[in-house]
């Protein structure tokens, strides 16, 4: 019989690892809450004076609320359109998989996953600039389109696990493909939609390279890109830099703390498919 005793070895291993994981975050917080003189005395000690105003100063210097807005617009629009369009494309591919065009399309999207970004990086900048898409909205379009590769794989995998007769009955009843998808199939996709939403959110919020090469105007920069610019401009103000890092990470961290169980199970589901 397998014992149900607590595995203390594993528990100790995980506690030791936790220190390792939490230390950088603790250090970040301590650096962001002191003035530079106190940092010079000791980085890790609790501050004598808690300087919450660092966050306000840093927010002004990086123009935080503008960047927050940009990152939020990108993430929300990308996720929304990804869910609606990518699921639909995957549905059509799965329905007509017997046909060689759709089968080919499936492998076309998936094989694109193996194309390293640097090969399209230089031309895509020229292309989007010529089309007037070197801005936030061009960036969103690229995220939605590039997401297809991985999301089609996830959605088709999930659709295959659903019973097949559901939508056939509806189609025989005279409902159009469009209606059948939105009324019958899309609601059933909720679990895998959650997975795609999580993965896409983390990607769109944290991505750095694509905004770096695409966005020309300072007013359109995202939070990670703003840290890069801030670093090169005011790198000497350690406390402000770290206050700024913390504020850039905070929105996703807060969402994660509130919904971690749901997020982890969402990603796990994607893994099993």
């Amino acid at each position: 019989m397998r014992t149900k005793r607590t595995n203390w070895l594993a528990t100790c291993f995980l506690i030791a690892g936790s220190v390792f994981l939490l230390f950088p975050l603790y250090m970040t917080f301590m650096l962001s809450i002191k003035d530079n003189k106190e940092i010079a005395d000791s980085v890790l000690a609790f501050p004598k004076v808690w300087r919450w105003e660092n966050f306000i100063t840093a927010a002004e210097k990086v123009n935080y609320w503008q960047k927050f807005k940009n990152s939020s617009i990108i993430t929300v629009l990308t996720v929304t359109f990804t869910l609606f369009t990518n699921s639909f494309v995957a549905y059509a591919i799965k329905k007509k998989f017997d046909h060689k065009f759709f089968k080919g399309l499936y492998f076309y999207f998936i094989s694109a996953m193996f194309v390293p970004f640097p090969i399209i990086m230089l031309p895509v900048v020229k292309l989007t600039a010529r089309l007037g898409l070197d801005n936030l909205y061009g960036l969103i379009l690229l995220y939605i389109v590039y997401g297809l590769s991985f999301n089609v794989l996830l959605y088709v995998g999930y659709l295959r696990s659903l019973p097949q007769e559901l939508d056939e009955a509806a189609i025989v009843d005279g409902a159009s493909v469009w209606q059948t998808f939105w009324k019958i199939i899309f609601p059933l996709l909720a679990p895998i939609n959650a997975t795609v939403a999580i993965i896409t959110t983390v990607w769109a919020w944290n991505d750095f390279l694509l905004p770096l090469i695409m966005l020309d105007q300072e007013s359109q920069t995202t939070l990670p890109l703003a840290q890069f610019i801030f670093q090169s401009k005011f790198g000497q103000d350690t406390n402000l830099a770290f206050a700024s890092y913390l504020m850039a990470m905070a929105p996703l961290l807060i969402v994660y703390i509130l919904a971690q169980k749901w997020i982890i199970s969402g990603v796990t589901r994607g893994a099993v498919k």
Partner: protein
Amino acid sequence: MKKNNFGIYLLLVLPATILFFIFHTIPAVMGIFYSFTDWNGLKPTYKMVGFINYLNVFKDKDVLDAYLFTFKFAILTTVIVNVVSLCIALALNSNIKLKNFFKGLYFMPYILSMLIVAYIFNYFFANFWIDIMGYLGIEKWMVNPLGNEKGAWLAIVFVTVWQSAAFNTVLYLAGLQTISEDLYEASALDGANKWKEFWGITFPMIAPFFTINMVLSLKGFLQVFDQVLALTGGGPFGVTRSIALLIYKNGFSGNEFAYQSANAVIYFVVIVAISLIQLRYLQKREMNL
């Protein structure tokens, strides 16, 4: 009676397919085309130069160094990330206290930006590393690794593992949870020890997850960019310049648009070849297990 709605389905996938073609396939083809020209990315005109860029890429010390760094980085990181995340997943899957707390904590790095994590560690290496090594008595390592030609790449490996192990951990944990308890009970009756149990039952059962993790990790790490930019900027003396960083830096601002396009094409061929070989090899092993 079954209607063949082929036309309708076609109409519905067409917009996405066209957009994908325009923004993914066309740039890739443009990249290949430019690699045969002498365009610097700014001039209004360019001419075809055949394979000259390719010949020069193979002779370019900067390019060779970038390949060397990128490969040793990607291979070591892939191995460490997979070992570490498998260990964490095994620990999280056993009977432990505070299971949900640990799960939440160990997955947290996944949601953090690699760039910002690297900035945080940049400070850590500059201000804590020397003290820690002094405390441990390892005098040889009492320098900031980011400024050290031998240590810089290992520091980048370290930071990447810190951030990337989380995602693989979840994949392994998902794999471990698919294994039924009965299998272990049978082996416990046979008197198998933990080590045998792992190689006899656990590992074969999660082999598909191992395959996908190895392939995705290596492919991802070969494209390393953010953490290099934030930790070393490619230095010291260019020893940590990754292929992606080289293409970015020289392609956009070094007048080497066409030349770096040729570099990117070679890089593309290399990544595809490696992914295919890896898949073949690992799938064969999976079947033998």
